[in-house]
């Protein structure tokens, strides 16, 4: 956790030091984020995650370059009756498995193109993923919540709809390192939403 806090602080503290030719510019975006589980996340919950939202804030620090924060909530679930082995026994029954992921990430983004035109952008996100893994079977529930350090490269497009408002499409590969007894987790989010993009 200390490492995560240090990175977040570093990113935020660096912001005022950067040149800021774009005073007054801000970016708030709200996106619906369905997600595709990968790796260990997929092993636990195989279904495509249709439940997800994200909120992003960006502030320019140089021309075309922003620093920001990103928050999200992504839900994966799967119902299965496969047999699990635990406590020296084989156990079957309807299992209800859930992964809830709440990423809290700092990011740096670079926007291509010019203001008022469709603008592709790339971003690097780093921070923490608060992840809850839960398995319900019968009257029993096994759950664990951990703070995972993680990162997420991102590609996106902003299409101006009118001044200060843009449609946003983005894709983000989320990778969270292992934490507690939970192995590393990964998934891809596909974002579709709007951005209040003053000055972009």
């Amino acid at each position, binding site marked *: 956790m200390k490492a995560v806090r240090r990175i977040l602080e570093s990113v935020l503290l660096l912001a005022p030091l950067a040149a800021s030719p774009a005073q007054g510019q801000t970016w708030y975006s709200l996106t619906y984020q369905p997600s595709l589980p990968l790796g260990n996340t997929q092993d636990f919950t195989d279904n495509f995650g249709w439940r997800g939202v994200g909120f992003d804030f960006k502030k320019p620090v140089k021309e075309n370059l922003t620093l920001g924060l990103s928050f999200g909530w992504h839900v994966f679930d799967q119902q299965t009756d496969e047999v699990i082995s635990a406590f020296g026994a084989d156990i079957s029954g309807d299992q209800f498995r859930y992964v809830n992921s709440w990423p809290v990430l700092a990011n740096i983004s670079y926007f291509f193109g010019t203001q008022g035109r469709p603008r592709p952008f790339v971003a690097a996100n780093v921070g923490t993923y608060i992840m809850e893994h839960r398995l319900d079977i019968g009257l029993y529930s096994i759950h664990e919540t951990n703070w995972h350090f993680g990162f997420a490269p991102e590609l996106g497009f902003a299409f101006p709809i009118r001044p200060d408002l843009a449609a946003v499409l983005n894709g983000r590969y989320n990778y969270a390192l292992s934490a507690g007894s939970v192995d590393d987790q990964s998934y891809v989010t596909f974002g579709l939403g709007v951005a*209040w993009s003053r000055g972009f």
Partner: protein
Amino acid sequence: MPRYGIVLLGLTGLVALGTACHPDEPTSVAELDVVATAHDDTVNFASIGTYVMPDSVVEIVPPESVATALPFNHAYDQLILDGVATKLAELGYTRLPSFAGAPPDVVVLIKGVAVQNTDVYVSYPWWGYWGWYGWPCCYGPGWGAGYPVVSVSQYDVGTIAIDMWDLRRADPVAMQIPAIWTAALRGLLEGSAVDAPFRIDQAIDRAFAQSPYLAH
């Protein structure tokens, strides 16, 4: 953020409501049924030819459940016995009618347990906590101490246990017969009586399906 941003944040709240943390939770009692099996992996089950099984389900009360035990409903005994016998026959086991004559290789005993479980949840409302915290320093009469919110959940649970005992390895000195396979079929004693046969059949199917080593 512009005004319409607030509107859209409200919409986000609606989306968030739709994105419940734990969607698709169980909707029927049958979805809460669980089957657990365990076996002695040093045993070659293919070498077992014959078994004896009593013609009734034995009601037992575990020592830890004396105070909460319920009468076991024997209405489904025959269904359970027939279901287990059918599965064992399919696997190649021959049922002997009794201990008379050649001794069987194993004994299969089916037991039934019914207990009432009670869970108590206690939580403290935050306003009561702070009211209590400030008194008597800064807050006078009228500030409540707050009381914990207590909720009680009570439910009846039934378990059918199928045990297989290896008579060939009975120890006459220690007077012990090793159990080589056990299956526990556990479920809520709730729901429609019409569903009970289906739930029992499904549980027996699961017990044998997850024990492939029993096959000859």
